[in-house]
């Protein structure tokens, strides 16, 4: 069975696509070992099927198991993450792989499954986790910078006439909704600090403005101070990203 991306995107909204995703992975796994069998229930007690991709498939052979979880495509979420789960009760070691529909991710996952079957997966699994974590962090950092950098350094989120700067607020809210603090694991602490602080500040500002009905000067000053702090963190983040890029280019 060949991988065709159009057959995989939108799989959560289309039962036929969902089934073709399940069949794709089962056929790939059966090419490695035909005796891998389903071992988990994927329905409620009323008989309704659970087609949410969590998991897409869960198969077992002797004392090893493979679980593939699939999400829709989203650049701000991990494209690939993998870990090992042990079940003492079943005397079982399970390889769990979370993926998004993407040709490269599929090829890597297929290779990882083959290595897991031969019990030689650890190095490759670590390498893939690191690689995709780096891609994810880069996507998130760029999203954050692209959204917040264009805001003028002198702009306030609450204007002097006590009106809300709606454009700036929309941006801050989008950031706090799409990114969450401490969700990303950065190897470079100089980036993780301003990154997490920025998202925390954006969430704080969004929460403060969302609950306020009437603004007074004291509150407006506090929110503008937080906004100032957010812009400072964004400048720091930008500086650190440039430093990291330069150092990467030198190493190349």
């Amino acid at each position, binding site marked *: 069975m060949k991988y065709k991306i159009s057959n995989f995107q939108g799989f959560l909204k289309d039962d036929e696509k969902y089934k073709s995703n399940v069949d794709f992975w089962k056929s790939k796994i059966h090419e490695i070992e035909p005796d891998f069998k389903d*071992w*988990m*229930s*994927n*329905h*409620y*007690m*009323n008989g*309704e099927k659970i087609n949410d*991709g*969590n*998991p897409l498939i*869960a198969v077992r052979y002797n004392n090893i198991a493979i*679980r593939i*979880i699939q*999400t829709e495509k989203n650049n701000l*979420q*991990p494209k690939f*993450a993998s*870990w090992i*789960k042990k*079940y003492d*009760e*079943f005397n079982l070691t399970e390889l*769990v792989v*979370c993926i*998004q529909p993407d040709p490269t991710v599929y090829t890597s996952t297929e290779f990882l499954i083959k290595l897991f079957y031969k019990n030689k997966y650890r190095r490759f699994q670590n390498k893939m*986790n690191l690689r995709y974590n780096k891609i994810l962090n880069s996507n998130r950092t760029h999203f954050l910078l692209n959204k917040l950098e264009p805001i003028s350094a002198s702009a306030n989120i609450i204007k002097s006439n006590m009106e809300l700067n709606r454009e700036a607020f929309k941006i801050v809210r989008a950031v706090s909704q799409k990114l*969450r*603090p*401490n*969700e990303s*694991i950065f190897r470079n602490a100089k980036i993780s600090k301003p990154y997490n602080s920025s998202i925390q500040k954006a969430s704080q500002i969004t929460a403060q403005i969302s609950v306020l009905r009437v603004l007074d000067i004291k509150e407006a000053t506090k929110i503008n101070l937080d906004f100032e702090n957010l812009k400072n963190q964004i400048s720091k983040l930008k500086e650190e990203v440039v430093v990291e890029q330069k150092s990467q280019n030198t190493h190349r």
Partner: protein
Amino acid sequence: MAIENRGRFQAQGQKLEESVNWAQVDPLYHCQAIVFIENLKNKLTRRDLKIRKNAFAECIDYVNKANKKGGIPAVHNKSFPKNYKERVDLEVHKGVAFLTKSKTQKK
């Protein structure tokens, strides 16, 4: 009487493995599951809990949904969120889980 119902809620991560297990004659009732999830939350540090805030919310939503659909039969495993190593796992190893406890059973 034989223990026909087993499972666990587990908070997992790079440096974390905390769980709350059940092993009982009766199915795991929905009200028990909610208490167990809260017990698991109480075992975590503030930081570990903060990272998993959404994971716990998703897990509770799923337990509620499963309860409305009559429960979940074993073997069943779900990870919340579904794409992170820092996560909360729900595992039904044996029997059924998330049923509604009837008034007579409560007595």
